[in-house]
């Protein structure tokens, strides 16, 4: 079976879902269900992680989904580390989607602080999934300190621009020893399929589903696209070429002697 394995845990779905921007927790839960996702990320700033009756947390069935807290809003390594520790102390969850985004407008990740935080958290026993710019060297540095994945952005978060950092993501995938999850900027199922065709191990989608007129339907669209892209990757899709290629136009005259 073709499973996604992160930190020795197996998942059938290669689609991760973010829970922000939905019109209600009910719609969010329905969209997650329809997407087939098994990993659901939640911004710690949005929920009261210690409160079982928190509207958003209550909508996520913890037996069915891996709840992946994220540190969205942290500006520094210190803040992200502190929030992760508080969360683990309160809930026992030791998985964390590490986001350190000092710029509040494009929410681009700070490579220096992210690496610093990842190093501390891994040493303390956290399973760390860092959100990063599509930077192959940073990816290697993070793998060296022991992160469970790398999560490069396709384009700025929430921008729906698709995979603008294609060349760098290709290198990250080629060199990776851990699963590569393309995290941000995927606005259409075709973008998700493209990431999977490139050999990404998974994708994470939030804005494109949450802000669609019909989020549940869009969640199904992404589910199918991720599956299709994965199948295409596994089937060894032929390389694209800008030119038509005749068979052996230059060397056809050569014969085996």
């Amino acid at each position, binding site marked *: 079976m073709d499973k996604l394995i992160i930190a020795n845990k197996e998942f059938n779905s290669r689609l991760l879902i973010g829970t922000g921007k*939905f*019109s209600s927790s009910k719609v969010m839960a329905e969209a997650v269900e329809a997407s087939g996702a098994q990993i659901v990320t939640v911004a710690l*700033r*949005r929920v009261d992680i210690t409160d079982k009756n928190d509207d958003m947390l209550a909508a996520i069935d913890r037996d069915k989904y891996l709840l992946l807290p994220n540190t969205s809003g942290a500006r520094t390594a210190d803040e992200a580390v*502190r*929030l992760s520790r508080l969360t683990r102390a309160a809930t026992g969850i030791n998985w964390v989607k590490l986001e350190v985004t000092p710029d*509040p*407008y494009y929410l681009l990740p700070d490579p220096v602080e992210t690496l610093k935080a990842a190093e501390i958290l891994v040493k303390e026993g956290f399973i760390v999934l860092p959100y990063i710019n599509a930077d192959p060297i940073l990816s290697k540095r993070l793998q060296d300190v022991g992160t469970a994945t790398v999560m490069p952005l396709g384009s700025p978060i929430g921008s729906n621009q698709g995979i603008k950092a294609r060349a760098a993501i290709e290198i990250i995938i080629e060199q990776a020893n851990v699963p590569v999850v393309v995290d941000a900027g995927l606005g259409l199922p075709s973008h998700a399929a493209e990431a999977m065709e490139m050999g990404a191990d998974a994708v994470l989608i939030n*804005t494109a589903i949450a*802000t669609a007129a019909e989020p549940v339907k869009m969640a199904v669209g992404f589910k199918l696209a991720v599956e299709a892209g994965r199948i295409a990757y596994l089937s060894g899709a032929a390389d694209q070429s800008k030119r038509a290629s005749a068979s052996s136009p230059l060397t056809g005259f050569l014969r085996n002697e």
Partner: protein
Amino acid sequence: MTTATQKIDIQKILADRGLDGCGREIWQKRLGEITPAEVEWALSRKPGYYVLDRLLTLVSPAAENYLEKMAQLTQQLTLQRFGKTVRLYAPLYLSNYCVNGCVYCGFNKNHQFPRTRLTIEQALAEADIIAKEGFRDLLLVSSEDRQFVSVDYLCKLASKLRTKFSSLSVEIYQMTTDEYAKLFAAGIEGVTLYQETYDRDLYDKYHPAGPKADYDYRLSGVDNFAQAEMREIGIGVLLGLSDWRLETLALAEHAHYLMKRYWQSRISFSFPRLRPAKDVDRRQFRLLSDKNLVQMILALRLCFADAGMTISTREPADLRDRLVKLGITRMSAGSKTNPGGYTGKTGSVEQFEIDDKRTPAQIASMLKASGLEPVWKDWDAGFLLPSGST
């Protein structure tokens, strides 16, 4: 940190552009000359980026015929950047003692009425009621009463409120960077400071007395709390004091300057229109119509995709219900603008009359009915705990 030699301060920017009142006639002339074709061109550009000329076009009289188009672009952009959500907050008024003589304000020091100050215990009792209504985002408000609502008082209060509220911000008198840094360390992560008007002459006219009477001092205030690393930087003008179109241009220049210099903080705009207040004669002001207010909000959103935009209970319910689909991302609910108003123990004077008197639960229902999630919590005190405290 920026060095002194690189410093281009906001006073200079506004003066160079003629947006501190000195270029009033030139700007008004330019506004009047904007053509429909120029508005159409501005609306054909990718929305969400600030250019002064583009904003000028969007706040022009000519753009009034394009409000529907602007509204649709605004709705799309806000949906993409903020999702189907609106943040809710409540103000907690601490004192209505004041040393300033602001002509438009109910708390003006010259007005004769029994003043009220809340002790920390009384403020906590008010906060309890607010928390029970579901709020996790609390705005502390006070007039300029340094003697009582001191930095020390605010720090003590904040440290006690932090267990109940995930986000604390203030709308209070202006402080120094060091004082703001103390508030930040105590858990206050946002400050809003209104310039009231960017027009120097009008500023002087409406602020005849008290520390707030100095225009340049006031204008330097936002830099002070931005330097103290506050996350949320709130700015705004009191709508009704001056020509709203020129005020919007100056406000945008201020925002643009702040965003470039303090790139780790988020800018938000508030849109207070002058309201009836005790002993204030409103006939001397230039009150804004709903249409003007909406044009201002739309024009700013189309230039600042990610800015927070706040509307308070000053505004009537039916207008607020529509504004949540037109770029507004944060609103107050169930507000009392008099110190002690939530516990109802003091019959104190309010800063202004509120208009939307619905309860927080009713506001939440209205949002849900509009397909929007009311967000009570969008921050966590855990971010700002002192190091090592975990």
